């Protein structure tokens, strides 16, 4: 009886004062992550860009467009030589990274910084998160062509 009464007291206390438990919906991102990991393993980074076709000679019409985007959205942090300022200099970036990785880094930077090992290494080095500059896929492709030219391709 005593125990029962204690239980009643406790139950009433909790019923009267117990906080509402917030409902938290847990998402299921497991499949997505697996798919992403495969892509990352190939050194192409994570994002919409799975395959980029590079042409030689360079696609000349892309270069001035890519340069204009560079000057507006990238130049504040990236130089065209190998000197790091805020972010790494761009010299030879197209020789070190796959084109898909570069375009994913430009267009999907927040996810890349969260999940891509190479991107994370750069963050540890630079200590400033690369901002999302809302560059479209088409514009990123133009920037890539400008980078290739900067790396001496014809």
């Amino acid at each position, binding site marked *: 009886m*005593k125990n029962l*009464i204690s239980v009643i*007291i406790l139950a009433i206390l909790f019923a009267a004062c117990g906080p509402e438990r917030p409902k938290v919906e847990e998402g299921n991102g497991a499949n997505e992550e697996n798919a992403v990991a495969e892509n990352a393993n190939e050194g192409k980074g994570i994002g919409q860009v799975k395959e980029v076709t590079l042409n030689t000679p360079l696609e000349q019409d892309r270069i001035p467009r890519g340069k204009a985007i560079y000057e*507006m959205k990238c130049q504040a942090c990236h130089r065209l030589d190998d*000197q*790091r300022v*805020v972010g790494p200099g761009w010299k030879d970036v197209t020789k070190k990274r796959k084109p898909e990785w570069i375009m994913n880094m430009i267009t999907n930077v927040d996810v890349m910084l969260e999940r891509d090992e190479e991107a994370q290494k750069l963050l540890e080095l630079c200590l*400033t998160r690369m901002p999302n500059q809302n*560059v479209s896929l088409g514009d990123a492709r133009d920037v890539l062509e400008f980078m290739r030219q900067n790396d001496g391709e014809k």
Partner: protein
Amino acid sequence: MKNKVLLGTAVILAAFSIYGCKPQAPQSAAIGDAASRVYVPPGQYDEFYNIVSGGFNGQLSIYGIPSGRLIKILPVFSVFPENGYGYSEETKPMLNTSHGFVPWDDLHHVAISTTKGEHDGRWVFANGNNTPRVARVSLKSFRTEEILEIPNSGGNHSSPFITENTEYVIAGTRFSVPMGGKDVAISSYKENFKGSISFIKVDSVSGHMNIAFQLRTPGFNFDLSRAGKGPSHGWFFFSCYNTEQAYTLLEVNASQKDKDFIMAVNWKKAEEYLAQGKGKVEKVKYAHNVYSEKTHSATSTIRNEVTVLDISELPEIVYFIPCPKSPHGTDVDPTGEYIVGSGKLAATMPVFSFTKIQNAIANKEFEGDFDGIPVIKYEAALHGEVQKPGLGPLHTEFDGKGNAYTSMFVSSEIVKWNVKTLEILDRVPTYYSIGHLSVPGGPTKTPHGKYVIAYNKITKDRYLPTGPELTQSAQLYDISGDKMRLLLDFPTTGEPHYAEAIPASMIQANSLKFFKIEENEHPFAAKGEGQARVERKGKEVHVYMTAIRSHLTPDNIEGVNVGDDVFFHVTNLEQDWDVPHGFAIKGANNAEILIMPGETQTFLWKPLSTGVFPFYCTDFCSALHQEMSGYIRISAAGVKTPLKFSTGKIEGEQPTGAGN
């Protein structure tokens, strides 16, 4: 026996535990699941945006409902230190008027734009009560985009109510005044003072406002108004007080008559006269200010003409309906058939019928005229009276189930009643002295219902005291059942007058995240760090500066003198959501600024002494925010220090960063 004692103790304990968690009577009637009804868990959103006037602070504030959380203060008619509105060179013209720069006005009412009588989620209009103006605010950018001054007005209270497709926004003068700035004796009120109602046309695409015409009316006070809708679309209803035409001690002298008027305006008829060229163009002076999202700048244009329709010369535009006594609110129900007049000194509340008004006009059931304008017989227009509704009825909102909710200022309560039967269904106390009230979608054809929010005039003991000046307050009530239930008190900034609430789903997805740098047409923008520079034009020094995490370019500036006007035009190069940068410099007499991604904002700095002055980003933006800074060197007047500017350049070394 022992068990009985224990059981008794348990009951007492239980009673105390429940009592201990309950709010104390009599201040609150919130009960049961009130807490969970207003609790929005972390990471989740409110169901409604509540757009609330700030009264004498001249701003709007945005709250989430049902939580009552303040999510934004939006400056309209007042300068705002938080984001530089009214301080930056770009926004100063927004507060220009024919009287010059007015830094602070009084904002009373809001109107969310409608299409076919329903919320369309595009704009909010707001009135400047003191120096008469109407503003249009974008619900995409949550910024004031346009402010139009109202000429021939003595205080813009009866405003900014809108027609069903936002064809017109209304600006009715609170105080009648002599037109044209005439120098006359105040005692010549009856002879010289006139009222003025402006119909502001709203461009259906751009939202741009333009005074289509003004009605010249007899001189008395216009308080509030509502447009007809559905069957009454094409009409507008205004409450009028001081039909006594008193000009002193209005408290007594404007409360003499048993009835004042509701003024019914047939604005389609007015449009006909206008098309026939019956309007008279008058010379006036008023400012029209427009903010451009492309140039990130406002322009202020002084306009000089307005077209006036004189209702004493043009019949069938206006009819007066007697309404007891000094009516405040005049509210039209969702069907458009019923017009509620709230006589703030009256013991009953009349509800007029649009059909009956039309019949009375057709059958000329007039009791006389006022300055030549027909006065419809009270009974001929009346649907019925709500008997003993409470003391001091002010405003009425509707729930779409045929019910009305009226605020009672003197008796501090909301009264729920049936519009057709006029039967009183429920009443709840408010704490204290409710002014306006709002049901989500209340003024539209299809109210969203669910809640009524009380905006109170007096706070007293509802919150922890903060000296003589207390927070203002609002209260949220559940109206989903038969009985109204108090759920929540929440504090408000400024004095809340009218407010509207709109489902978050109509706004949220359209909310602008940043300005596209490609589309920035500011004449002093630096669209990329390569364009950052300093230019001297005589005594003016223009700094084209860029900001991006985490540096300003240029961050070393020399060659500027005491006596120069230094304009810092700062372009935020970021293109991501929620990355504003701020800018401040030591000794800034004018302003600081906050620059949204992709935007350019300017402030003017006048160096008064020599030295080296630091400047920095004021909005914590990144891990290296503390490093986001620079220096400007100020030389004495006349000293020819060479103009120099740079970022990352170390004198005597190769220009370099941190190395690779």
